[in-house]
């Protein structure tokens, strides 16, 4: 299945792919564990070069600066989150939904970092289809609640509209409806009321950089209390 992609492993590890080629390769890595394994193998071998460094002296203030950035109550839900991927889809969805409600209601659930905003995206018939948490570092955590059908040659693409002037901006794409963290795009800090949506686009992603496919779910962000 990945024959053509196999030829691109070296280029990928050397970061010589970009644009559509890169997106298509990464989508295939997400889909094909064997390809992902071969990428990891080459990467691991090349890292022998990185490991030839002589460790540098570590400045005394560096750890303090890191520590100052750690959220004090991080991770309470991390233990819940890891096994989710292995559980059945519906169960995963309901557990996360419960966690989300607990979080919004100010219970002891907390996320690895406090999201700046959370949006529950709903379908045309008003069913919740996905939850998006957007973080200050531009990353977005997406928990699909519906097993969106993704036909061959299509991908799910996540969008937000920080303002009318900026218009819709792609936050990333994913091939299957599974919990995922995307790096997002460098944007102003997300605000309450900001629009988020997921569209179905031709792989490797919208050709125009703006949404072109049907909107599967959309919703407005709110800030956690």
């Amino acid at each position, binding site marked *: 299945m990945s024959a053509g992609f196999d030829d691109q492993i*070296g280029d990928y590890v*050397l970061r010589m792919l970009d644009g559509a080629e890169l997106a298509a390769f990464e989508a295939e890595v997400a889909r094909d564990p064997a390809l992902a394994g071969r990428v990891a193998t080459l990467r691991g071998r090349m890292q022998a070069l990185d490991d030839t*460094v002589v460790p540098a002296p570590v400045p005394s203030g*560096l750890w303090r600066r*890191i520590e100052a950035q*750690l959220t004090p109550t991080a991770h309470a839900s991390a233990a819940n989150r890891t096994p989710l991927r292995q559980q059945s889809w519906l169960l995963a969805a309901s557990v996360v939904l419960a966690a989300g409600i607990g979080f919004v209601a100010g219970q002891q659930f907390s996320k690895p970092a406090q999201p700046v905003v959370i949006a529950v995206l709903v379908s045309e018939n008003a069913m919740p289809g996905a939850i998006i948490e957007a973080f200050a570092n531009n990353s977005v955590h997406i928990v699909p609640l519906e097993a969106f059908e993704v036909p061959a040659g299509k991908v799910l693409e996540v969008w937000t509209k920080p303002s009318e002037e900026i218009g819709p901006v792609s936050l990333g794409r994913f091939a299957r409806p599974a919990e995922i963290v995307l790096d997002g795009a460098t944007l102003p800090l997300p605000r309450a009321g900001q629009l988020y949506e997921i569209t179905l686009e031709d792989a490797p992603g919208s050709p125009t950089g703006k949404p072109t496919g049907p909107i599967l779910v959309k919703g407005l962000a709110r800030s956690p209390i």
Partner: protein
Amino acid sequence: MEHTVSDIRQTISPETLLARIAKAERAALAALFESEAGRLLAIARRIVRRNDLAEEVVQETFVAVWQRAGQFDPARGSARGWLTTMVRNRALNLLRDGGRLEFHDATTLEALSGREQDAVSAFQTLSDSEGLKQCLGQLDEPKRRAVLLTYVVGMSNGEVAERLAVPLGTAKSWIRRGIAALQECLR
């Protein structure tokens, strides 16, 4: 407290530390920092060429490790390799974003010649028993240099072309053929 950190470091693998970090154990993150920060700083420095930026890369990486340790998948390589990949990606992004890396003229020459030296010395420092060294050794000299300059210090294709005094297309083709031959040899 210092005592605890040292104890953890001596007896516990980075993989286990990551599992503990995923459960929000700060002492585990401190132990991982103590054992890995020096190596990671040096890797970042080879790419970004400045101490302040290398520190920034390592700082961001450890904050990300704190948030994402639960995403580490041992089936995809070692914990140290995972850290190396995170540091490399951040350093290379910083380099590619460009703006902040402009060197003053006085330092340019030194910084750039340092890059070439670093790339070559990484190859020379590899242990002879390391398969990668043998495979790199089998490449023609220009292809080997092209791959090393790209991987070790993160030179762009254009910088490699300039350094090797060949057209951009030639440099790209050397890098691509070089890494393909390496991969075949390592199989």
